[in-house]
């Protein structure tokens, strides 16, 4: 361990001892994700060397995060507010304060389970739950519609036109002409959905990779950093996006099930009808969001921000997105 890590580990130990009753230390500290501006750490609170409580730290060590993301403080507040909503979420144990000396972030109870989508799709141990997951996704999203948004921390409002304008600006700023994107943008501008009477909580990145699964199904929905108030069709469509089907083309819902199953479960849980044309619109918009994201990776690579092979290869996934857009715009998906 470097001296920076040593200091971090000691500080985390002090904070843990203060907030977890009975704890006098930590063990098994390991980093789960290594973003420059957002880190996720897993560790255990221990007492006299014995395991006491499993924990996750999500923190930003400082520095600017994407303007699209909620502050970690707001994210923690949102997860706390969802604790009794029927949406499965982790339990937030502590929101970091300046005197903790760990930057911005929060601690939550670690939930054991699987988070790797490919394993959920392929491993025999999940064979039994796979047929039920699509309905669970629908029921979870249905529970969103029963949440009184006035009781949530302040979240940004992002309707379809807000998101479309942002994506379109981002695409323009990249300066690379992409005829397939132009076709999709024009379609999106011409088919904009009507305003809703009631906007709802939207997770914003609702897909298999942001959930923890156990033998009984979804244990928790994670990564609320791009949550906002918006159109419930956004989440219903995002989980149908091709990048998380992993080859299971004919099971659009995360490679697991059909749109119809998802929508029926949503309707049963929310008591509200799904407007399928609206969901389709959001699938095109979501695909565009993924595509503009991939296209932006070129800038990361050429500017020197991230010159890894992995980044270069993600930039070359724009063509995959153009194919997905062509398919959805010509009715073959």
């Amino acid at each position, binding site marked *: 361990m470097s001296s920076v890590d040593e200091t971090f580990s000691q500080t985390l130990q002090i904070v843990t001892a203060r907030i977890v009753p009975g704890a006098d230390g930590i063990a098994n500290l390991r980093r789960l994700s290594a973003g420059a501006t957002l880190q996720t750490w897993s560790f255990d609170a221990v007492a006299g060397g014995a395991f006491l409580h499993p924990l996750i730290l999500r923190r930003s060590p400082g520095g600017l995060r994407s303007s699209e993301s909620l502050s970690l403080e707001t994210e923690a507040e949102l997860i706390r507010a969802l604790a009794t909503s029927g949406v499965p979420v982790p339990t937030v144990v502590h929101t970091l304060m300046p005197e903790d000396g760990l930057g911005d972030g929060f601690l939550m109870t670690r939930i054991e389970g699987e988070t790797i989508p490919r394993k959920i799709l392929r491993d025999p141990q999940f064979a039994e739950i796979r047929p039920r997951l699509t309905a669970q996704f629908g029921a979870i999203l249905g529970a969103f519609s029963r949440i009184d948004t006035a009781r949530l921390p302040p979240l940004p409002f992002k309707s379809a036109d807000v998101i479309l304008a942002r994506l379109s600006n981002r695409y323009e700023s990249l300066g690379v*002409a992409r*005829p*397939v994107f*132009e*076709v999709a943008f024009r379609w999106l501008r011409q088919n904009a959905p009507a305003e809703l009477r009631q906007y709802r909580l939207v997770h914003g990145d609702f897909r298999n990779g942001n959930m923890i699964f156990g033998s009984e199904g979804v244990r928790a929905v994670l990564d609320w950093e791009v949550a906002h108030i918006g159109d419930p069709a956004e989440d219903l469509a995002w989980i149908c996006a*091709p990048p998380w089907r992993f080859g299971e083309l004919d099971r659009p819902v995360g490679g697991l099930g059909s749109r119809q199953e998802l929508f029926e479960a949503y309707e049963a849980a929310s008591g509200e009808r799904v407007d399928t044309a609206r969901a389709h619109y959001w699938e095109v918009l979501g695909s565009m969001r993924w595509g503009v994201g991939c296209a932006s990776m070129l800038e990361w690579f050429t500017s020197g921000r991230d010159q890894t092979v992995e980044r270069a290869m993600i930039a070359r996934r724009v063509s995959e997105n153009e194919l997905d857009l*062509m*398919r959805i715009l010509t009715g073959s998906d």
Partner: protein
Amino acid sequence: MLDQPHGADILAAVARLLRDTLMPRLPPDAVFQARVAANALDLVAREIRFGETVEHEAHQRLQVLLNRDGSLQELENELSLRIRSGELDLQSPELAAHLWATTLAKMKIDQPNYASYRRELEARAGQQQTQAKE
């Protein structure tokens, strides 16, 4: 003038070295990186093999579609503008054919194993067979 083996064949040999010889000896976190690197080498080899033809064909299609001359980049910009203004859309069979051909050609280099790419190729092969029988 250049001697053989060609660059693409050498890259294929490096990808084999990574996959067959080095990856089994690497720790798990490095295996992922090595796999990404091997995939990247495969992509570059395909770009060397098909890149020039693919861009040449796209350029020719664009000259016909837009009825003007110019570099590939200029014509792509022009096409984008005409789509944005509504002059061309997917209802135009010529535009649809060009965008399909271009998109599939890019995928042939970038990700030939992607499921929807395979599906599109199969659908096209099926159509050709049906037409041949008729």
